[in-house]
């Protein structure tokens, strides 16, 4: 199986004719992802990516004509919330929003609508998800992966590539790698992804990569302590040296009023029996020490 993306993924790319959209769509196609449609208003009827993908004016039309069930959004920040709502309105089940810099209030409103529509939003400001050997949606370089059974969930982009590369180099393959995004308001949380991994028969180990800010890692740790006993797990938390009160690049990465520190998160994870790596390169050894035989 795998979670969120896989062989059953029929992808529509919103903003496919833009620079980013086209570049990453090509990489997704080369990886083997089934991109069934692109959407750019007023460019409907064209073909893009060397005639391999038809372009539609609206997501609804793309869904009707191609049976798209997943969307990936490369629309700039000012238009991205509308793109999310359009996808939810067209009946898309899983919506990935790569866009960075979306106003938080727009995301509050978008998340409320997406939830009411029964859809799932991943991101924004996320690198997407890859199920190695099956499909990749987003911007994670395909080369870092190897097929296997470890699920990876992370708030970061390049830090995820670093950790996944270390796993691949150590012979530990992945079922699915999910980047949930670095913004304060996101559609899918660590806890949501842990629940999906727990229900996936092909995921037999879990790696959680968090960072300072908020309390989502603590929430995930508490749930894991109760429901993931016996599943080999490892974690990494970025920002041990981050000063208080400054946003560390990601809008959501801020220690405020003494809460959201790396120390708090590490303590919560260790209390849940999950060992936290001092460097991403130590993740494979921690999984092995937790009994993982990949």
């Amino acid at each position, binding site marked *: 199986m795998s979670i969120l993306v896989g062989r059953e993924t029929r992808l529509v790319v919103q903003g496919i004719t833009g620079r*980013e959209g086209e*570049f990453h769509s090509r990489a997704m196609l080369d990886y083997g992802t089934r991109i069934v449609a692109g959407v750019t208003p007023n460019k409907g009827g064209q073909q893009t990516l060397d005639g391999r993908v038809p372009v539609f004016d609206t997501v609804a039309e793309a869904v009707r004509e191609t049976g798209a069930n997943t969307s990936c959004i490369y629309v700039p*920040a*000012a238009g991205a919330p509308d793109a999310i709502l359009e996808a939810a309105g067209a009946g898309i089940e899983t919506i990935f929003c790569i866009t960075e*810099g*979306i*106003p*938080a*209030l727009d995301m*509050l*409103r978008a*998340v*409320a609508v997406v939830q009411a529509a029964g859809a799932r939003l991943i991101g924004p400001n996320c*690198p997407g998800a890859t199920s190695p050997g099956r499909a990749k949606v987003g*911007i*994670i*370089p395909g*080369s*870092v992966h190897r097929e296997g059974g470890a699920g990876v969930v*992370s*708030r*970061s*982009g*390049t*830090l*995820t*590539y*670093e950790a996944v*590369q270390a796993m691949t180099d150590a012979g530990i393959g992945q079922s699915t790698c999910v980047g949930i995004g*670095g913004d*304060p*308001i996101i559609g899918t949380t660590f806890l949501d992804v842990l629940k999906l991994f727990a229900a996936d028969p092909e995921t037999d180990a879990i790696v959680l*990569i968090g*960072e*300072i800010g*908020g*309390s*989502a890692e603590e*929430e995930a740790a508490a749930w894991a302590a109760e429901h993931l006993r016996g599943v080999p797990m490892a974690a*990494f938390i*970025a*920002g*041990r*040296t*981050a*000063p208080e009160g*400054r946003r*560390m*690049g*990601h*809008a*959501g*990465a801020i220690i405020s*009023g*003494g809460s959201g520190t*790396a120390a708090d998160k590490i303590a919560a994870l260790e209390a849940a029996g999950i060992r936290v790596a*001092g*460097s*991403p*390169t130590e993740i494979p050894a921690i999984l092995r020490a937790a009994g993982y035989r990949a």
Partner: protein
Amino acid sequence: MKIQEADAKSLLLAQGLPVPAWEVVRSAPEARAAAERAFAAGASLVVVKAQVLVGGRGKAGGVKVAADAGAAEAAAKAILALEIKGIPVRKLLVGPAADIAREYYLGAILDRVSRRIVVMASAEGGVEIEEVAKVNPGAIHRLEAHPHLGLLDWQARQLAFAVGLGGPHLRDFVQVAKGLVATMLANDADLVEVNPLAIVRETAADGSPVERLACLDAKITLDDSALFRHPALEALRDLDEEDPVDRQARDEGINFIKLDGSIGCMVNGAGLAMTTMDLVKRAGGEPANFLDIGGGARADKVAAAMRLILADPQVTAILVNIFGGITRGDEVARGLIEARAVQARDVPMVVRIVGTNAEEAAALLEANHFATASSLDDAAAKAVAAAGAAARTGPLTNPAADR
């Protein structure tokens, strides 16, 4: 983005909230004139408050009450001589001092856990709400405002009764609480706080005493990501209090935060940039900065990042860590080569570039005699060793740049 109290009060006033009159001044004589106007308008006391973007102004001596214009001028002079948490006071707010009967707290935040606007009220106003949360969390009443509908009347009434503001102040409180959330929605704020919201005693036109609600202080933080659609709010950025280096970084589109250490870091991606700092520390060094050049950075951006790092005289070694995805390793390598040719001082540099176009990058770096590293841990260790060696031999100048 943080904005000054006076600007926050303007935003509250625009939503119809009750805010006492004020003026902003920059000198003691101006403060005296403003105080004279306040007394002429009927004030019996005036308040002079430092306008700085940090908390704890009262404790630092940045808030004083004066009974006449001369005292106001003296208070202004004293406050303008202060530095509060390292920030020199350049501006003052002057206005009538309220006769306070009772203080409350009212605030609205974007809550990342519930993914809702959370409105909080407490009868323990005038003190830091973080302190109340620690000592007496039950004294803070919270509820969620709908992201589309804002705060509803019944919710505002519920909060009013919870903090004991039923009765004569109920109607005013409902207006203030709804206006607080409206202020947040209208300006894309992620925090709006009125502390204290106070019952103040005033004299009616017929000479009889009256009590009413007033917002005596205001704190607003704006969502940086939303400033693109609020050009008027961008103008509220207090450039006096912004570090010139921060401003330069913002203009270049680079996420940069200066720290106290000696090892400059250049990384792509925020999570990896934090991790790189953490590993420098773990290897026994101290990071000089957080720096994320962002995705897809080109050679010119790399050169700009290098200038930012080298502008810090404490930097004695540089660690470059790039995991290419959208970012191409050879572009970064070219940027490093260009930057080194013109930089003012020669600092040992350790470069690690993996991912997209890493082989081309490695060839460029080798041809130009850069020290490289393969793993992240190895790169951190080498940078720390280089900083240690530089500390022993003293700073070097760049012969290429001297020509």
